[in-house]
C-alpha cells in the first residue's frame, strides 16, 4: 500500500563541520517515477540519499513525505523506505534467509518467514540462500540485498550506486526491479554512474554539482570531464556503444 505519493525537499542544507555537502537542494519526487540523480564524486548525491533515507538530518531545510514532516514522523516513515547501496547491509555470518527474515521482523511483518520465502522466489534465490552471506558472490549478494530492501514493499525506494561491481545479468535484474517498483507505484530514486542503466530507467534526471541541483545535461548522463573521456580518447557514447556490442558478441 502506498503511504504517500510524493516527497518534497525544500532548501536542504547539510554541513559536515565547515564542509557544505548540500547547499539548498529543493526537489519533488512523485509516485510511479524513477528519478536519476547524477553528478561527479563529492557532489552531494549520497548525502542527499542519506537524508531521504532518514539516516542523516539536514542542517537546514524541510523534508516532507506526503503531508508528514520527516523530523517528526521519522519512525513511522521508515516503515515505507527501502534502500539498496553498494554495501549489502547484510550480516555475513547469517544466511541470506535469516537476514531477510530478520528485516521482515524488524519491519513488523507478522510472518517474516513466509515473506522471506516469497522474496526468495521472486529473486530466484535458490539453495545458496541458506548458506552464510559471507560465502556469496557479488551477484548473489545483490539478489538477497534487493530482497532485504523490498521486504516491506517500500513506497520510497532509494538506490545508491547499486550496480557497482555487478555483471550484465546483475544490472539487468536491477533494471527489472526498478521497472517493477515503478509500475507498482513506488517512488524510485537512483544514484548511479552507470550511464546505460540511468538512460534505460529514468523518468526524469537531475544533477548535483557542488551540493546544488543544476539542470541535468541533455543526452548522455552527467560526467566530469575526466570521466567523460575514455582511456583511448573516444567520447563516452562511443565507449558505451563499443562496450555494449562487446557484451553482445560474448
Amino acid at each position, binding site marked *: 500500500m502506498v503511504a504517500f505519493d510524493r516527497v518534497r525537499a525544500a532548501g536542504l542544507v547539510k554541513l559536515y563541520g565547515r564542509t557544505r555537502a548540500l547547499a539548498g537542494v529543493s526537489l519533488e519526487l512523485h509516485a510511479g517515477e524513477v528519478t536519476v540523480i547524477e553528478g561527479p564524486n563529492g557532489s552531494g548525491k549520497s548525502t542527499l540519499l542519506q537524508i531521504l533515507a532518514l*539516516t542523516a538530518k539536514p542542517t537546514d531545510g524541510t523534508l516532507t513525505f506526503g503531508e508528514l514532516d520527516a523530523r517528526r514522523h521519522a*519512525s513511522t516513515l521508515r516503515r515505507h*523506505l527501502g534502500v539498496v547501496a553498494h*554495501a549489502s*547491509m547484510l550480516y555475513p*555470518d547469517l544466511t541470506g534467509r*535469516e537476514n531477510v527474515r*530478520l528485516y521482515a521482523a*524488524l519491519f513488523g511483518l507478522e510472518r517474516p518467514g513466509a515473506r522471506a520465502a516469497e522474496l526468495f522466489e521472486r529473486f530466484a534465490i535458490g539453495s545458496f540462500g541458506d548458506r*552464510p552471506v559471507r560465502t556469496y558472490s557479488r551477484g548473489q549478494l545483490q539478489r538477497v540485498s534487493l530482497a532485504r530492501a523490498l521486504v516491506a514493499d517500500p513506497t520510497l525506494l532509494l538506490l545508491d550506486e547499486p550496480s557497482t561491481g555487478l555483471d550484465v545479468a546483475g544490472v539487468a535484474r536491477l533494471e527489472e526491479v526498478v521497472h517493477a517498483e515503478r509500475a507498482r507505484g513506488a517512488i524510485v530514486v537512483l544514484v548511479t554512474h552507470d550511464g546505460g542503466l540511468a538512460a534505460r530507467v529514468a523518468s526524469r534526471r537531475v544533477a548535483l554539482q557542488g551540493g546544488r541541483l543544476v539542470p541535468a545535461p541533455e543526452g548522455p548522463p552527467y560526467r566530469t570531464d575526466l570521466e567523460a573521456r575514455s582511456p583511448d580518447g573516444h567520447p563516452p557514447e562511443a565507449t558505451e556503444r563499443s562496450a555494449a556490442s562487446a557484451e553482445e558478441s560474448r
Partner: protein
Amino acid sequence: MKALLRGAWLVAAKDLRIELRTKEVTMTTSFFAVIVVLLSSLAFYLDRNVAAQVAPGVLWVSVAFAGLTSVLRSWGREREEDALRGLLLSPIPRASIFFGKLLGNLLFLFAVEIVVVALVALFFHLEPEPLLPTIALLLLGSFGFVAAGTLFGALSVQSRARDLVMSIVVFPLVTPALLGGVVATRELFAGATLPEVVAWIQILGAFDLVFVGAGYLLFDALLSD
C-alpha cells in the same frame, strides 16, 4: 514500550545467533581472560592472605578488559557490510538497538565471567563463601560498564579512531565502577558481609542507572550524522 522491547529482543537474538554460530567473541575474550588470570596467579600468588588481596583486582581487570573487547567486537560485526545502517533504516526505536546490543554483550560477558570466577577461585585458593556475593557484585558492575561500552562503542562503528574511543572515552568513564567493584570484592574476601558493602553496591547501581539512562536518551544522537 512494546516496540522498544520487541526491537531489542530481535537485535539481541540476532547477536546471539551469530555468536552461537561463530563463538568468536566468547572464545577470544575467554582466552584473554584465562591468560590474565593464569599469569597473575603465577606472578602474585604468595600465600592465601596475599591471594585474597590480589584476587579482586585480577578478577575485575580480566572481566573489564574481556567485556570491553567483547563490546568492540560486537560493534565490529555491525561495521561489516554496513549492517548497522540496515538496522538504522528499520522502523524500530533507536533505543532498541542500544538495549539489544547491551543484552547480547551482557550475555557474552556473563559466560566469560563464569569461567573467570571459577579460575580465580581455583588458582588463588579462595574460600567458597564470598564467591556468591562476588558473582552478584560482578553482575551488577558488568551491567554498568557494558552499558557504557555499548553506548560509546557505537561511535567506533562510524569513527576511524575506534581504538581511541575506547581508551580515551570509555576506560575513564568506567573507572568508578571498577574501583567500586574491586574495593567491595576485597572487603568480601576479607570477611565482610553483603550488608557491610552496601555503599559500594549503591554506587554500582547508580552507575548502572546513569549509563542505561544515557544509552536510552543519547543513542539516537550519537548515531546521527
